[in-house]
């Protein structure tokens, strides 16, 4: 009798634990999926802003990179995975946005430039949210009990999204709101056209302080 009670209690405890683990996995999968959706939204917004700037200023190279990035968006918005081809196209767009021509064009169109910059800052943030979610999910999915019992079901492990989203160096209006952070740009989306010429600032906004992420 006592043995039976102990066995039943043990089975219940194990079942509860496994159910709890499965719920955590479900929740993490939902978080990864939401974060992926958010990332796509921000990629689309950045490419739109870039295309607009390119059009206003006749920047062919930027227009081409934006167009290349936009090719994959219908599929992404329909739920396609963020794969290596997307990463390459977004990398090219990041590089084009850092070009000298863009900076020069921005002198004449500060509002468009600001839209592009805050779009880029939001992409960096959204990517961080996404990769954080992926990391948490992989950590739990990698636990032995989860792997042995196939608690993740048929879900394939989500991949990190790795692009070079270092923000362009600009002469910025005072002050840098965020010191030493990779995510320092104004993400409020406000227009902030007051850019005064301020030589001597190091403009370290968003550069190189995320080891292992920017590639």
């Amino acid at each position, binding site marked *: 009798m006592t043995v039976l009670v102990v066995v039943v209690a043990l089975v219940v405890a194990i079942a509860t634990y496994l159910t709890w683990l499965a719920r*955590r996995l479900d929740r993490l999968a939902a978080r990864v999926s939401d974060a992926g959706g958010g990332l796509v939204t*921000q990629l689309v917004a950045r490419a739109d802003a870039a295309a607009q700037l390119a059009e206003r200023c006749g920047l062919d190279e930027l227009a081409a990179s934006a167009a290349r990035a936009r090719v994959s968006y219908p599929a992404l918005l329909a739920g396609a995975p963020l794969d290596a081809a997307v990463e390459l196209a977004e990398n090219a767009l990041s590089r084009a946005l850092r070009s000298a021509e863009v900076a020069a064009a921005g002198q004449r169109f500060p509002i468009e430039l600001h839209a592009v910059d805050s779009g880029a800052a939001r992409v960096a*943030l959204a990517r961080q949210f996404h990769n954080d979610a992926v990391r948490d999910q992989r950590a739990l999915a990698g636990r032995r009990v989860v792997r042995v019992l196939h608690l993740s079901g048929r879900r394939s492990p989500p991949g990190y999204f790795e692009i070079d989203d270092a923000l362009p160096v600009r002469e910025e209006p*005072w002050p840098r709101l965020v010191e030493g952070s990779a*995510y320092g740009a104004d993400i*409020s989306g406000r227009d902030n056209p007051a850019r005064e010429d301020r030589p001597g600032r190091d403009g370290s906004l968003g550069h190189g302080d995320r080891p292992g992420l920017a590639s």
Partner: protein
Amino acid sequence: MKIGLACPYTWDVPGGVQVHVRDLAEALLAAGHEVSVITPVDDEQTLPSYAVDAGRALPVPYNGSVARLLMGPVSAARVRRWLRERDFDVLHVHEPSAPSVSLLACMLADGPIVATFHTANPRSRFLTAAQGALQPSFEKLRARIAVSEAARRTLVEHLGADAILIPNGVAVQHFVDAQPLPGYDDGRPTVAFLGRIDEPRKGLDVLLAAMPALAARIDDARLLVAGPGDAAAVRARLEPELRSRVDLLGLVSDADKPRVFASGQVYCAPNTGQESFGIVLLEAMAAGTAVVASDIDAFRRVLDDGRAGRLFDVGDPAQLAATLADVLTDPAGAAGLVRRGREVVETYDWRTIAERIVGVYEMISGDRRVSLAST
């Protein structure tokens, strides 16, 4: 947006996190959002209309001070009801590593959850020990915010997760129209100091050492010192001829703080230790007082490399006296500093900071709302 804020520490006990949550809530309300705060409180009468009582926190001695914790079933029921009834778009928990309301909310909720980490504690034994237990709650956080670089580093070291840096704001509107304290509205050249008077790192001694040289250049210069500490001991150390020009006010209330800044033409921050952030400088700038501060990293950043306030070499009374005299005798230059200061302050205005935080909310909320977690 409908925003739920969870504050882990007792509302009517003074503390930085509580002030942060209050200022954020009021800035969000002013921007037209729907806000509800849940927090432990001793005296429910002190709660503003937008806050909900989570119960009384239990004081527990921890790590040499008293931590106030709240994790019981009654609070859990209140947090659960709060989450169910309010139907938030975003839940924003503050300092969820403290075993209190924020952590409870994190455990009970699901959906768009943001956390702000306030504490910088490079060797937190609690965090290290609790990491495994916190992980199931922390893996629900869709975005993490740190209020300082040090807080961010603590988070990275203990929980292996990065955070967005959004600094504390300054409630600028509390400072802009501040009036001088009685007796300080006569235009006499006055230097104001605010901070613990017996804490060497705050640098009052440097300022006192600069006073004779300042008095030699400006006949009627005086110093207004506000802050807690042993005033008798400080007075005893003063040169007799200085006693008439140094006023020791002692501890001032929060309401009088803006008036202290407004009582001086110059606010002086002679700190000798590294400060992580110069919030007090921003407050002085918001009050429209010119700032003279020691040249340490945090102050140099806040003062825009000397354009929004004058810097002097750390611990150098002679240079401090000369700088103070310059500012006090050059109204046009001082006005320039004040003007630049106001521009700087604007970016730290709670209205601006709250806007940036809402930017984070918008990025993580999507179409999902905050719900009760199925456990």
